[in-house]
């Protein structure tokens, strides 16, 4: 039997953090592998997981309702795990989770549902990947994405957004109303800049297209500053 210490190579990774246990389910598992991994983990780590508070990170996999149901039946309920939040980059998966009343997003870092300002406890979310079309990151605080945001992908942050690479998709900084947020990217190629409740429509004609820039709001107007190459 594989020990829990060797789970670094497994399809489902367990890691202790301030929220309890972080369960990361690799997005590239086939359905069969997912079933096998769930059953293996339920069997070998049941004692460890029973009653533990956990964040389940589903990465960008687009789960179907049956697959989420499988996860609940054969893993969450079977081990007695207490899920405090679900994390996903898939819009469809987020919609399914929300529809079922699940808490989504990094715990303690989401905005209060009635407030317009980001949650004061919101930290910085680091995303070590590129986002492909159809994938989305939502976070109450700042987002630092070390990759590209392709056309059709979306980043919504209560605070500022830094995209290390190319920004071609939607990036909405200060999406809960914080106009002090800014947008930084290595190459700006997006049709819009969004900060707080302001939107600017752009195209290739602007002088800073494909440049490294910092975009912010000053007196309700967009201000763009070139960043050193």
């Amino acid at each position, binding site marked *: 039997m594989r020990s829990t210490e060797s789970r670094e190579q497994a399809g489902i990774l367990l890691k202790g953090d301030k929220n309890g246990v972080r369960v990361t389910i690799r997005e*590239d598992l086939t359905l069969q592998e997912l079933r096998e991994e769930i059953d293996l983990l339920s069997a070998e780590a049941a004692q460890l997981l029973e009653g533990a508070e956990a964040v389940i990170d589903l990465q960008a*996999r687009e789960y179907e309702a049956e697959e989420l149901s499988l996860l609940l039946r054969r893993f969450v309920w079977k081990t007695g795990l207490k899920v405090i939040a679900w994390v996903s980059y898939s819009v469809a998966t987020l919609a399914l989770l929300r529809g079922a009343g699940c808490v989504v997003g990094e715990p303690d870092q989401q905005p209060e549902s009635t407030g317009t300002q980001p949650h004061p406890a919101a930290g910085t979310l680091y995303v070590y990947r590129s986002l492909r079309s*159809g994938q989305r990151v939502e976070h109450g605080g700042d987002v630092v994405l070390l990759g590209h945001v392709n056309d059709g992908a979306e980043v919504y942050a209560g605070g500022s957004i830094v995209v290390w690479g190319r920004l071609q998709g939607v990036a909405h900084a200060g999406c809960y109303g914080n106009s002090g947020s800014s947008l930084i990217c290595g190459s700006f190629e997006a049709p819009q800049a969004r900060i707080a409740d302001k939107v600017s429509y752009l195209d290739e004609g602007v002088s800073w297209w494909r440049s490294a820039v910092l975009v912010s709001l000053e007196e309700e107007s967009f201000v763009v500053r070139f960043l050193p190459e």
Partner: protein
Amino acid sequence: MDSRVIVVTSGKGGVGKTTLTANLSVSLASRGYKVAAIDADIGLRNLDVMLGLENRIVYTIVDYVEGNCKLHQALVRDKRVPNLHLLPAAQTRTKDAIKAEEMEELGEALKRDFDFVLVDSPAGIESGFRNAAVAADEAIVVATPEVASVRDADRIIGLLESMGKSPIRLVLNRIRPGMVKKGDMLDVPDVLDILAIELVGIIPEDDRVLTSSNKGEPLTMRGHSPATKAFTNIGSRLIGEDIPFMDLVERAKGGVFGKVKELFGL
């Protein structure tokens, strides 16, 4: 060799999935590999027409899944290319007629008898695509050098990655070298920069693709056009041969002499 199940998909419709499946199937079968081409576009079948086998269909993939026939009865053998078999889609049913588990079982069953199983996926990202992809280990994503097609390909690649398909390879179809040269069309490096997957083929725009489809005679069955060569090269790369990519832009500069050479497939 181990049997390989490859889904041919794109997200966007009309980019050449079925044409590629047909040509690749013929190309691989002509080399002696046993090939099954599955038309997974249930309700809108086309692969049979492209392969010129529409008159020989008795049973379909849905008949097999529902237990109305044996697998060998549903497979249509191509008399012109003896190693090639088609598993046709049903035209009168919808994509819900088959479940993902049934497709998985079908893929496993075909693996026992064939070296290559090529699955022609329907456009879209719904159940039809998922069913087509679920049986496959590998994927070929077809895109044309248009912004909409590339964005849809990016979406599909994200879905395929999250389904554990590997490798995922790219075929760029309908390249018009003259337009690329003038900067009016996305160039191959532009697309690769965005999609960031392995390129397995570049196919130039060629009117003969249309006429061959209408005749039910894929270009790889006969002919020496640049598109024929491009399809054949994809087959070669899939079986591990190191074939350099054609420089279509240089070819476009060839003038009258170039056109004559092209006509003779040189």
